[in-house]
């Protein structure tokens, strides 16, 4: 029946529609599609008599299975997408490890795979995803150039680890190797990302933290914590050691055996000295450790800091701007990949789904967690000017800020830690990764755990 490319500027109905920006027109996608299909049908010819009903009917029976981690694949987002697009969307949450294993060993059981940069590299290598046509992604040109060109305002984004730009392009739709440079085919469509750093208790630490080395400062012996995910924990540790001037890494995201040995041995030394109160495994553990005052400085994720603040306990996400080639945030980015087996109507629906993500509702939703959308311009349409000012521009909040479910979080006047998103993102010094020496790194990390 051919592609019916509809104008994506029709905004889906939104229960948070703010009247000030004039988005009140609840023009549902479905009715627009029907109208558009009728026009297109008339233009194409006789064989598409009844096309609108067939299209709507067929698409009603489609079910897209979107699988990924719970902070990126959110049921509320899936439900809204289903409402706006007219087909079923099933979100399934797994942890990172189980997800990548599912994609590789049971590719037919997933439709849309939620992939981090390094997972996209793996999935391409194993041939379980298909290339995404960049032309079919509506807002592609509005994507922040950190993804599409690896730079922002002329400033090249550091590529230690596997940056989203590096993991984005492949040469042909069925290539198994990543391509360094812009092409027409993508491995994934980025949908949410952030820059991670340390969380700390400003009341108990006493000063502003801007350097990673504070985590390993003996001042905080027994009151520091790091997370128990080898690939991420080791990079946080690397940032600390580099910040303290103990070592200079070639590529923190792809260490040599010697660098891994140095890092893990130093970690074991710190553990034996009693520096770490715990190595946290679950999100809530990181929140509780901080909220109860058991640790005062910790590797944390942005929503965890927010969760501590909801408990009325001061907690700051350190601003780690790059200084002298040291410091900087650790960035991560999740994107949607299309599994190879998608064809025909389902593939069409998948493209609709991905385009819907870029149309703004999802972008606004994840912003309230402290995450960013790759297309801030559309997300902005679904946020109040106050929210946008707070979350993206780093300005003081003109009014109280709520979390994605409406629970009040920040008082008016607070400033988002780290400043504007431009400032935070341009200061990312390394990205989540899969190292060449991953097996060796796992072994040494376990040595650290049993020490």
């Amino acid at each position, binding site marked *: 029946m051919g592609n019916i490319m509809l104008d994506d500027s029709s905004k889906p109905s939104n229960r948070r529609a703010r009247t000030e920006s004039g988005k009140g027109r609840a023009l549902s996608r479905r009715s627009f599609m029907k109208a558009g299909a009728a026009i297109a049908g008339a233009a194409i010819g006789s064989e598409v008599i009844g096309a609108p009903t067939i299209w709507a009917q067929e698409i009603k029976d489609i079910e897209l299975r979107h699988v990924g*981690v719970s902070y990126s694949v959110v*049921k509320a987002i899936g439900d809204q997408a289903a409402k706006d697009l007219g087909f079923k969307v099933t979100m*399934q949450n797994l942890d990172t490890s189980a997800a990548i294993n599912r994609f590789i060993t049971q590719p037919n059981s997933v439709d849309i795979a939620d992939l981090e940069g390094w997972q996209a590299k793996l999935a391409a290598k194993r041939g379980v995803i298909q290339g995404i046509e960049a032309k079919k992604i509506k807002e592609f040109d509005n994507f922040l150039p950190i993804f599409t060109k690896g730079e922002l305002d002329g400033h090249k984004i550091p590529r230690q680890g596997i940056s989203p730009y590096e993991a984005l392009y492949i040469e042909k739709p069925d290539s198994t190797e990543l391509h360094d440079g812009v092409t027409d085919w993508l491995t994934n469509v980025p949908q949410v990302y952030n820059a991670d750093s340390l969380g700390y208790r400003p009341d108990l630490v006493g000063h502003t933290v801007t350097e990673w080395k504070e985590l390993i400062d003996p001042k905080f012996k027994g009151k520091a914590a790091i997370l128990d995910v080898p690939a991420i924990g080791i990079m946080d540790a690397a940032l600390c050691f580099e910040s303290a001037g103990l070592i200079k890494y070639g590529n923190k995201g792809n260490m040599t055996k010697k660098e891994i040995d140095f890092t893990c041995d130093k970690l074991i030394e710190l553990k034996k000295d009693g520096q770490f109160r715990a190595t946290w495994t679950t999100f809530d553990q990181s929140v509780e450790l901080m909220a109860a005052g058991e640790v005062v400085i910790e590797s944390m994720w942005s929503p965890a800091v927010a969760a501590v603040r*909801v408990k009325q306990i001061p907690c700051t996400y350190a601003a780690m701007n790059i200084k002298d080639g040291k410091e900087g945030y650790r960035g991560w980015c999740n994107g949607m990949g299309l599994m190879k087996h998608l064809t025909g109507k389902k593939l069409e629906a998948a493209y609709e789904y991905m385009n819907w993500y870029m149309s703004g509702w999802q972008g606004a939703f994840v912003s309230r967690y402290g995450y960013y959308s790759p297309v801030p311009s559309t997300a902005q349409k679904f946020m109040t000017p106050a929210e946008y000012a707070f979350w993206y521009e780093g300005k003081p909040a003109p009014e109280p800020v709520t979390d994605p479910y409406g629970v009040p979080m920040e008082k008016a006047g607070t400033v988002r830690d780290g400043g504007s998103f431009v400032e935070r993102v341009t200061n990312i010094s390394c990205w989540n990764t899969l190292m060449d020496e991953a097996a060796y790194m796992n072994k040494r990390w376990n040595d650290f755990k049993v020490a």
Partner: protein
Amino acid sequence: MSAAPQMLASARARAKRRAIAPSRGGRPWTFYVLAALFTFYVVALYGPMICIYILSFQDVRGGLVFPMKGLSLHWFVDLFTQVRTGDVKGAFDRSIKLAILVTAITVVVSFMAAMAFRRRFPGDNIVFAMMIGSLVAPGLVLGIGVGLLFNAIGIDTSWYGSALGAQLSWTLPFGVLVMFAVMSRFDPAWEEAARDLGATAWQRIRLVIIPVLAPGLVAVALFGFTLSYDEFARTLQTAGPQNTLPLEIWSMTLNVTSPSLYALGTVTTIISFVIIGAALGTIVLIQKRRGARARAH
């Protein structure tokens, strides 16, 4: 000859001095010690549960720990309407249905397997070794293996298919081993007597073996249910596109975990107490009726 009755008498006196046997009259000191231990055990068992019950009544600001925030039924409502992250209710439904299926199949298949093992048969050592192997093989790796096989054959993994099989491979060894222990107290004389009276094999099973072994079958059912309901490692890669409850909760721990989990704990406890109360009540009623009928004769 006169020494014997004297010895018996002194032995009896010694016994009376030491302690009174539990089945005669008053309570020995050991009863109180053991009762205290039992109470401690039950309290310890319910310790975490009490936190769950209390914390499930928080309001919308509530987290997973004390101090408690507010008092409301918000999380119970959330549990049934699913506003927050995760599909707790759906996962719970699937877990319960799967657990019931697994329990039923485990009881039947364990019973049958134990019947088979009553006599030596060619290959019984191999079967036994396979069973033990299935018990000890790490579920994580086995789950991936099952997933790979299903994918290769082209069958979709699902909670009622591949996950069911994977969980059975875990619960059946438990069930069969318990049946071994239970069957060993089954006196074959009863079965012989039934055969002598002309009962067919099926009648022997239905009217003699199963009723006598009923408590053991209940034990197998209990294990089957608990093991299936909490099963994580094998189910992780075999559940297909829909999570069971342990998978769902584990995935939620990567993000803010909602206290609706506590509400779920409270709800399941209330349901289980109701069921137990009903079951015990029925038994008491049946016993009373039997007693009345017996007296009437």
